[in-house]
């Protein structure tokens, strides 16, 4: 644990709360296992003593900004999380001047679960080149050593190389155990619709039946609705109690969006997302 | 032989449809099986689920009286998918009925008392069988005061029955709307304000109220100002329900289930939940 970094964050938050510049800090505290981290909301200056930051701080706290609209909030954001802030800014969900962003240089986070702290960095962190937040008001910590660039999509290429039938079977096997707890949606900073298509009754797109076909339709459209919007925090996959490899879906779309539209979500709050714009003369390798 | 499954509705036929307001229809429903029909006994305040097969089911207060009506009657306001499907049904169509569920207004206990009935909008539905029971046993009750409000004059649900109600002995009907129109010569006021203005006496009286929650809350305040105590104030609540049998764990207010312990409650039982913003 980088104590200097933590003192930096605590000191700043104490001041912000005391000055009344914000009424709440969204950060991390130690979880009930005494080992990993969990989201923490500090409302009083004294509560900042509970704030921590270390390699178990995997949660993307930006999710909570949608619950706290209209309040002045300070939020601790890793580089990947900060992309979600840009996403919400771009989509008009939050106002820049109501959020004080405490960006942290990120050395990567490890695989965690309750009472379990892995030795190695999460797969997404192993190839991540984004070490500094893309948007912040205050930058905490020190620039970590650049990680070696690696292939980001080997697992996806592997799925792509299967024949149609096998791909179909592969996904049905993986979507089969889905219990439709919607943790993937609830934890996602990009999922903020007041009414999700999956719960619409009229028209009823999916319905309440929890079965492989319905699960697949849910998962396919969930992923598609995040195409060009998913910032790759992979919180959905971490949250999934049934270990569905959601990152294989999300990163597939990330890869295709990059290829087709040369776009990566959340790198800027200004750039037009791919489905909000078009080019008259573009060949997308599909229609005649 | 499968056991009787409480989730399987009785089949019924739609007998009659009457438009009460632009968005409320009075539907008359008759159970198909004569034995089930004969055994289907219910009291004012109880409810049943109506099924539009293929769309779903939803709970409705039964607005008829077994002594008066051959059919089961429901006042259905079109507000969601099930109610829309019910509105589209025509006489002769099949639908499902599950019930009766819940408790009822203990009208026999209220004999000899003055009755104050306060209803807003579609909230008049469960109060109609109460009023009609009192009218059918007019001598057994004291004065009857009915205060009925709605958004507009067209939304007064039981308008066709007002004449009968007004002409009954020792009975007063006070109507009010939020917004009048050119023909409306009556009151334009909120229900709680009318209650304050009419100021029924709490002595030996029972007030029964049903309507939007906001109306119930404010009416409750006024009734208390007038001296009504919690045990003299009775209401009936609506809630999202999926079973009607205290199983789906959706309609509970604290440890009480609206479907099984209600829908009729005295304020004594539920004021904690109503007073919250």
């Amino acid at each position, binding site marked *: 644990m980088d104590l200097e970094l933590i003192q930096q964050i605590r000191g700043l938050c104490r001041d912000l709360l005391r000055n009344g510049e914000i009424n709440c800090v969204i950060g991390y505290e130690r979880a*009930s296992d005494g080992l990993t981290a969990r989201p923490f909301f500090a409302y009083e200056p004294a509560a900042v003593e509970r704030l921590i930051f270390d390699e178990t701080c995997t949660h993307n706290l930006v999710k909570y900004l949608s619950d706290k609209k209209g309040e002045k909030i300070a939020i601790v954001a890793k580089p990947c999380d900060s992309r979600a802030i840009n996403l919400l800014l771009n989509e008009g969900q939050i106002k820049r001047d109501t959020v004080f962003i405490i960006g942290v240089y990120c050395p990567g986070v490890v695989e965690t679960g309750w009472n379990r702290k892995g030795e190695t960095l999460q797969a997404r962190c192993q190839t991540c080149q984004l070490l500094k937040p893309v948007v912040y008001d205050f930058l905490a910590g020190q620039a970590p050593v650049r990680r070696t660039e690696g292939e980001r999509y080997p697992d996806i290429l592997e799925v792509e190389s299967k024949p149609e039938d096998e791909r179909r079977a592969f996904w049905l096997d*993986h979507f089969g155990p889905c219990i439709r707890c*919607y943790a993937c949606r*609830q934890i996602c900073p990009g999922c903020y619709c007041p009414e999700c298509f999956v719960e619409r009754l009229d028209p009823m797109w999916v*319905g*309440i039946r929890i079965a492989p076909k319905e699960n697949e339709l849910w998962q396919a459209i969930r992923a598609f609705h995040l195409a060009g919007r998913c910032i790759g925090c992979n919180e959905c996959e971490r*949250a999934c109690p049934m270990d569905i490899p959601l990152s294989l879906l999300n990163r597939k779309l990330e890869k295709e969006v990059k290829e087709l539209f040369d776009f990566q979500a959340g790198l800027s709050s200004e750039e037009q997302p791919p489905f909000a714009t078009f080019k008259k003369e573009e060949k997308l390798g599909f229609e005649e | 032989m499968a056991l009787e499954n409480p989730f399987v509705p009785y089949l019924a036929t739609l007998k009659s449809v009457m438009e009460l307001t632009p968005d409320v229809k009075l539907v008359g429903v008759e159970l198909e099986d004569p034995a089930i029909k004969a055994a289907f006994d219910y009291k004012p305040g109880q409810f049943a689920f109506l099924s539009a097969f293929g769309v779903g089911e939803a709970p409705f207060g039964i607005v008829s009286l077994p002594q008066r009506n051959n059919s089961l009657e429901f006042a259905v306001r079109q*507000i969601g998918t099930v109610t829309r499907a019910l509105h589209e049904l025509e006489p002769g169509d099949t639908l499902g009925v599950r019930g009766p569920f819940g408790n009822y207004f203990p009208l026999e206990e209220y004999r000899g008392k003055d009755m104050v009935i306060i209803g807003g909008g579609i909230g008049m539905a469960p109060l109609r069988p109460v009023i009609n029971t009192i009218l059918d046993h007019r001598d057994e009750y004291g004065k009857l005061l009915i205060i009925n409000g709605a958004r507009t004059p067209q939304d007064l649900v039981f308008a066709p029955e007002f004449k009968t109600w007004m002409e009954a002995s020792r009975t007063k009907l006070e109507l009010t709307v939020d917004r009048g129109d050119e023909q409306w010569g009556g009151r334009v006021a909120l229900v709680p304000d009318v209650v304050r203005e009419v100021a029924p006496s709490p002595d030996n009286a029972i007030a029964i109220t049903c309507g939007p929650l906001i109306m119930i809350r404010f009416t409750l305040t006024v009734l208390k100002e007038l001296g009504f105590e919690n045990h003299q104030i009775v209401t009936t609540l609506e809630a*999202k329900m999926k079973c009607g049998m205290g*199983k789906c764990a959706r309609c509970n207010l604290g440890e009480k289930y609206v479907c099984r312990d209600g829908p009729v409650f005295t304020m004594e039982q539920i004021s904690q939940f109503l007073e919250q913003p």
Partner: protein
Amino acid sequence: MNLLMSRDDLIRWLELLLQERTLIAPIRVQGLLLFQPVSKVEDIAFDFDNTTLPPKEWYLPLTETLFSVKSGDGHTELVPATVEREAVIFGVRPCDAKGIAMMDSPFLQEPGDTVYGERRARTALIGLSCKQARPECFCTSMGSAPDDPSNVDILLTEVEDGYIVQAVTDKGKALLPQGLKESKAALPAPPEPQAVPTEGIVQVARKLFDEPYWERLADRCLHCNICAYVCPTCYCFDVRDYPDDGKVERVRSWESCQSPGFTRIAGGYDPRATKGARLRQRFYHKLLYFPEQFQDIACVGCGRCVKACPVNIDIREIINDLQQLGAKSGS
């Protein structure tokens, strides 16, 4: 009198059961451990902590058809679902068995849920005592124990030369093979899970309805349905119609009091509109409403929700917090 069953005997017995009825047991599927119908006895996991999901889905399935609507020629018929074969669930932990027994209270109270009741009557439970307590376990604080035989038909406890067999009910006795020898060995001492201060929690909870604690706790909650779906005692459900290829079915599926639209009625009004109100409902149902109706706290201490919650909403911590708040607020 306890009996002894060798490991080979157990395999042979399970094979026999598999021929006669549906056998459900923990099976490893893509890194998960799930209660599934067994096709080969060698697929069964014998050595495990606990399953990913509790066995409740065999009584209250994730999704089931309540009845189907058959119509034609102006005639409509409702065909209720029926229960298939006799079944045995093998490998149920004592905490989960208690969970099933607790679901009986709401589901079998009049008017009883007949499909649930029939499944319950036609299924036998073979329990497996826990050899060790996991860090998230707290069953002994919730009226169960790692070796609690109360809610199963047969309880097996693993020992060096096989399993000590306790035939708890007549249904269990009838299932057992003939010729098992008496067990000379005493039952091993059970492991000791962590303790949680549940004493008096019902009375304490009653006082804390209006505590700001709930809104604060709910800040962190995502309002997903994980905790309810992994819980052996949560039983909320949703019912809807499915029109499909001209066929209409009424379907029941799991739902949870945490999901945002759970209590919202047509027209938009929601009596539990805030995150705090929903989260309080979850814990009040467990710690107050269920005990008030049916005596027991609606938690068996299996610790699944503790382990699975992505944001560490920990019921043990909440019970501790409530006790402290209760002590502060006096009586």
